[in-house]
């Protein structure tokens, strides 16, 4: 590579307050002209000490805080945390609880992907897809609000199930939504997928090859866009994913565009899962058992456990080290965005400044998850 003299390099700060960093990531970008020489991502502006907070709170006290690890997909964090405790205490959720957890998590996955879609296109300069994505997202969030009582910080799961039963009215609204969701997806595809401007910004840009993906332990849709078929829902099915018919989309193009296509396809699959869960739930509406009778306040689990879940951004792990007291000894979160954000220097080097936004946008990084 050609050596560039120091006086031709312009260092600019992108973030922590910047429209396209999705929160408070700071990137120190060295530019030569508009070509990126080096990117130094600096994280930690949203650090709230969520792992340390666990150490002086009881298991129940920590439960609402878990939702805030990734505020766009709170159900996944809740599930990972509770699943760990359930494993330690040998509690198996009832079948209905499992179905309710699946349906809510898949809806949450759609909201997360829709927000990503809107923001990604906003980064590329298109304004209306942002609104269209948010209109659909709003519908799901309204349903989840009526179900759980809150729009984003759900705090809905509890030990061995969920806090409130799902009623017929909400189920019908879910059905109505998933029936109409296909038209919305079609609309996004019409608007975006073939657009030559969009293609020129995303095709063959930000390539993650298989080797790099494995080296950086990338998971989730970013990994599947690089041609590696890894999805926890298929590989080691949790909840009721065994009984459900769905596909894991994989593409081999490795670029930003394939990451877009993968997420659209994933939303379709999620919709399929939701419909199947709906069909089961509508037949078992009278089942009463939705949570365990153990009092959450007084649990004293013991042992170490790793619980995993396939979150919208990839593999989310919660590692609980319990020492038999009311409070956990240590809780460690393995969050997928933390691994994606490290890729940025590798991916965007030698591209132009506008490409940085399309590459970073396509990775679906969310800062609360990175900093915790």
């Amino acid at each position, binding site marked *: 590579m050609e050596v560039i003299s120091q006086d031709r390099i*312009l260092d*600019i700060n992108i973030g922590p307050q*910047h*429209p*396209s960093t999705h929160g408070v990531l700071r990137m120190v970008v060295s*530019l030569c002209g*508009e070509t990126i020489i080096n990117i130094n991502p600096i994280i930690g502006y949203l650090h709230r000490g969520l792992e340390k907070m666990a150490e002086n709170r009881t298991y129940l006290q920590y439960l609402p805080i878990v939702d805030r690890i990734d505020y766009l997909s709170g159900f996944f964090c809740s599930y990972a945390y509770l699943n760990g405790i359930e494993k330690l205490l040998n509690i198996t959720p009832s079948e209905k609880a499992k179905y309710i957890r699946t349906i809510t998590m898949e809806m949450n996955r759609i909201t997360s992907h829709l927000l990503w879609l809107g923001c990604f*296109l*906003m*980064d*590329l*300069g*298109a*304004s*209306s897809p942002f*609104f*269209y994505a948010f*209109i659909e997202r709003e519908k799901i969030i309204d349903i989840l609000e009526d179900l759980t009582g809150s729009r984003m910080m759900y705090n809905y799961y509890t030990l061995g199930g969920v806090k409130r039963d799902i009623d017929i009215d909400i189920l019908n609204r879910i059905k109505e939504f998933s029936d109409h969701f296909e038209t919305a997806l079609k609309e996004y595809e019409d*608007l975006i997928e073939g*657009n030559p*401007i*969009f293609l*020129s*910004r995303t095709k063959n840009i930000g390539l993650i090859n298989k080797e790099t993906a494995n080296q950086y332990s990338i998971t989730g849709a970013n990994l599947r866009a690089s041609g590696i078929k890894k999805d926890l829902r298929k590989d080691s099915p949790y909840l009721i994913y065994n009984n459900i018919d769905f596909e894991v989309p994989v593409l081999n193009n490795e670029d930003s565009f394939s990451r877009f296509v993968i997420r659209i396809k994933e939303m379709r699959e999620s919709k399929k899962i939701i419909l199947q869960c709906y069909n089961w739930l509508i037949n078992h509406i009278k089942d009463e058992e939705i949570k365990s009778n153990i009092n959450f306040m007084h649990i004293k689990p013991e042992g170490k456990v790793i619980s995993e879940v396939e979150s919208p951004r990839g593999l989310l792990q919660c590692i609980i080290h319990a020492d038999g007291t009311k409070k956990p000894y240590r809780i460690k979160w393995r969050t997928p965005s933390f691994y994606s954000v490290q890729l940025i220097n590798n991916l965007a080097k030698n591209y*132009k*400044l*506008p*490409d*940085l*936004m399309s590459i970073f946008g396509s990775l679906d990084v969310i800062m609360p998850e990175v900093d915790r």
Partner: protein
Amino acid sequence: MSIFYLIYIEFMIRINAPHWLIFALWHLISFIFIAILLVITVIILVLFERKYLAFYTRRKGPNRVGTYGCLQTIADAIKLLFKENIEPKNIDKMIYYTAPLLVFSPIMTVWFLIPFTSGIIPFDSSCSLLLFMAILSIPILATLFAGFSSGNKYSLIGGLRACTQAISSEIPLFLCLISISILSGSMNLDSIVKMQNDSIFQWYIFPNILGFIIFFISALIVMNRTPFDLPEAESELTAGYHSEYSGMKFAMFFLGEYALTFILSAFIATLFLGGYNSPMGFYISDLLNLPIIFQEFLKNIEQFIWLMLKTGILILIIMWIRASYPRLTTEKTLIFSWYILTPLAIFNIFIMAIYKLLRSIL
């Protein structure tokens, strides 16, 4: 010259005004009239764009100030007027304060070249196309000034982008003007319009459709509109070259941008869509049986309405494009205008020359 001018002269002579005053006052009046018209149009345009984008994105748009939000822009302007004048530390003061003035005044000047009706041509010059080319390059200088003097790296990149983009887009833009001159055999805008007056098929869009498309796209690049709004790409450069401008200085850039959009649309309408000519080949006001003075007056109004309608449709399309597309990168914009638009524009001149030749023979 025109009916208005004759009435004006008549009136001035009756009140015994000196000759120099008659001449000076006429220009002053037309200047004030046109300037106020521009400001009003821009104010309407800003509100209209917000409403129109809201229409496409299933919102309602501003609807709090006045009925249906009709006073929103005025409220915004008042807010900007009362803002504190923030002066960044590392600025080059002289250039920093010149830039907002430089962006608005040339645009105002270009506005004078447009023949609004057959009676109102504020500045009728035999080489108004040439003037148009020359004056249109000045606002680009303002963006460059703003970028360099702000002492902000984002502004600098924005200014440089604006500059490269302007150079690359103005060449196809001006090449299209040459094709228009070839067709009309004139550089006077009024005579270009008069050449298109018979019917809708006389409009230059029909022989020169390629030129129209190239002109339209290059105009989008000059206007910094989506998909070519790179100098102020929000997701990359926060606000581009006007990052460091606040209050009224920002308003100047903002209004200048909209004024440029409007004027370039009016120019496209004048050059390709027959200007103030009616698309039907006759004027509705001609059908009425009225005294000649009234009829002339009504005809002027009708011509003005036709021009505004055509401009309006073009602006609708420009805003529609803004609602639909993402933004290109700098590199792709330059490749697009140098490798596709410029050769096509040259090719277009060639075609137009042959067309003209064939028409004169046959």
